[in-house]
């Protein structure tokens, strides 16, 4: 059966009686309210408001609209402020630290002399780093055979045994071409100058720093990112517009923050000092 627009307009005009006046065709609001209660198996004998005059209906309607506008404005404000705070938190980058321009000689990780070497430093319990590991997995698939990769899981002092063997460790361990390193006391992380989980370093075959930063678009968020695109460009084309990007993740060392709880409250605006 073809759709007839004029029919639809006519129907639109007739169906919304409960929001208009009560003397239009299609049943009074009271009759519709009563029949609706019956259809919903509700208490149809419950008292309905006195049959309103046009004046009463219009006054009630105005008051209801005002209340709705106020409630709607409060609602939109609360939702808007909440979302803005959430996004601000998501875009607050972590501390970069001092990246080493040359491959640290004292590092236990071996530099690949045939391909660029990527090092990611991760806090094994950081939920935000899941996104970084997921993006590393995509990166390794994209650059299969063109990149050597290592993920350094930091073990702070006095960590229990296997403290670093988390689901993040397991996720990273199944990425092809990636080697995992358990970093006692964060020695390796300190050699590379990492302070935030998810920090990535890319060194050339000659041990020169090509890139440092994060490979997620925001905190704990998967998807294409500037850092990822720059790494791909550096590996496949040998160059990129810039060699850095913001990194998003948890702090690797509590000593970075003098008062952690206060710092966490500040973290709504990021880990910036």
């Amino acid at each position, binding site marked *: *059966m073809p*759709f007839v627009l004029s*029919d*639809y307009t006519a*129907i639109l005009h*007739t*169906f*919304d009686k*409960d*929001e208009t006046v009560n003397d239009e*065709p*299609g*049943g009074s609001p009271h009759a*519709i309210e009563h*029949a*609706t209660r019956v*259809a919903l198996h509700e208490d149809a004998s419950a008292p309905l408001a006195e049959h309103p005059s046009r004046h009463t209906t219009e006054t009630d309607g105005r008051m209801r609209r005002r209340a*709705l506008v106020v*409630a*709607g404005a409060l*609602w939109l404000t*609360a*939702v808007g402020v*909440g*979302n803005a705070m*959430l*996004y601000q*938190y*998501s*875009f607050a980058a972590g501390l970069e630290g001092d990246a080493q321009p040359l491959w640290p000689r004292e590092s236990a990780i071996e530099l690949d002399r045939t391909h660029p070497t990527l090092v990611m430093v991760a*806090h094994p*319990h*950081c*939920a935000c780093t899941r*996104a970084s590991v*997921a993006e590393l997995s995509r990166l390794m698939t994209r650059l299969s055979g063109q990149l050597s990769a290592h993920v350094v899981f930091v073990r*702070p002092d006095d960590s229990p045994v296997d403290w670093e063997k988390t689901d993040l460790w397991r996720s990273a361990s199944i990425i092809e071409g990636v080697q995992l390193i358990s970093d006692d006391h964060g020695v390796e992380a300190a050699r590379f100058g990492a302070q935030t*989980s998810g920090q990535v370093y890319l060194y050339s075959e000659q041990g020169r720093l090509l890139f440092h930063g994060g490979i997620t*678009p*925001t905190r*704990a*968020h*998967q*998807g*294409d*990112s*500037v850092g*990822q*695109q720059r790494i791909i460009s550096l590996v496949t084309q040998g160059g990129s517009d810039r060699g850095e990007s913001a990194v998003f993740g*948890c*702090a690797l*060392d*509590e*000593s*970075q*923050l003098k008062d*952690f709880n206060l710092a*966490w409250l500040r*973290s*709504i605006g990021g880990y910036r000092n």
Partner: protein
Amino acid sequence: MQPTETQQTNRTPGEEAIDQAITQRARELFNVRFKTSAVQIDRMFAMLILCEWVAAIALSYWISPFAWAGRESVIHSHVFAAVLVGGAISSLPIALAYLQPGRLSTRCVIACAQMLWSALLIHLSGGRIETHFHIFGSLAFIAFYCDARLLIPATIVVSLDHFIRGLYWPESIYGVANPEWWRFLEHAGWVVFIDIFLLLNCLRGRRELSDLSRQQAQLEESHDKLMRIEKLAAVGQLAASVGHELRNPLAAIGNAHTYITKRMAKANGQPLQDDEKVKQFLGIMRRELDASAGIITNLLDFSRMRQPAKDPCPLHPLMQESIDLVPNAEHVQIINEISEQLPIPHLDKDQCRQVFVNLIQNAVEAMSGLEGSKVVISAEGGDSSPWRITVRDNGPGMPPEVAAKIFQPLFSTKTKGTGLGLAVVAGIVEKHGGTLVVQSNPGEGAAFVTEIPPNGT
């Protein structure tokens, strides 16, 4: 099918009025159905949004319970976001769904809230591509309302979210720092793409609802018309039946009257007490007048059945009284097996006596002249269970098609009868809150079972 112009112009004012009434009723039905559906969907959405809130809290606590710094940790901001931002998003739609269900404003807020939930869930799940399907699922659910207008605010919320994030945090959507300004339109375009099909679906749904309402309005009109015709037919049938029943006694009375008049003319002032023929005809007149009065009493009972005046009424003596009122019939034995110890029900004694006299008399008449005929009356139950009073005979019984119609007014298998007796009986039992059923097969007798509910129910 639309009526042709000729058909329209040939319609009488009466038909025009009926058509207008149908149109008016169709609109009422449409409004009620639309609002009923909207209220139900509002409540479904309220439940869904509540579930989304709970799921978001669970999801955030599961995926990102803590933020870490070395070995120190605190509750992750995502958990707070799920509780507070999720709570803020859910508050107004849930409140409106219960305070103002079925209104356009409620639907609009729900549509916006559902799309905001999509954005929050995508965020809390770490931007997983799978969570983006929540947007399309939500749009499809919004289309359940069959109100295409709701797709506009829903689409605006999605587009605005992309536009603002594209403006301030472009990497979170496009993965590049400086996207073209129109990139948000690409995302919104896909939302509009699905909107088009949902819009068509909404239009189709509304049209079907409108057609259905009109069909029901026409059906109701036809039903009313049929009821009027049936009533007229019933009146005609009743008039014919009553006329037929009254004609015979009136004819007999007329004959008797003629004879007596002639006899008086011939008597020439002589007394007629000793004339046996006159006595016989006066007897006929008395009998036929009684029969006519009986027919009229039946009619009045049927048309003006009064509410029963219930009092404690022992069943055994009631049944004995009823048996005593039934005229004796040859070869028929009536046995009252009701125990005198049976609990006493609350009944209208006069009405119930009428019921049982009628049932017993019918049984007796059905077996009149048959050797070894028996009518056995029994009862059971009482206290918390209903009373079951059975009038059973061992007569010829009745076929199922007769049993199915036996309580209908004006239905009779007797050559002489208005067909109102059992209809009156069934009406009385119904007024007592009970039921009357017949169990019978041809050649196996018949049992009329009266069930009366326990006292106080």
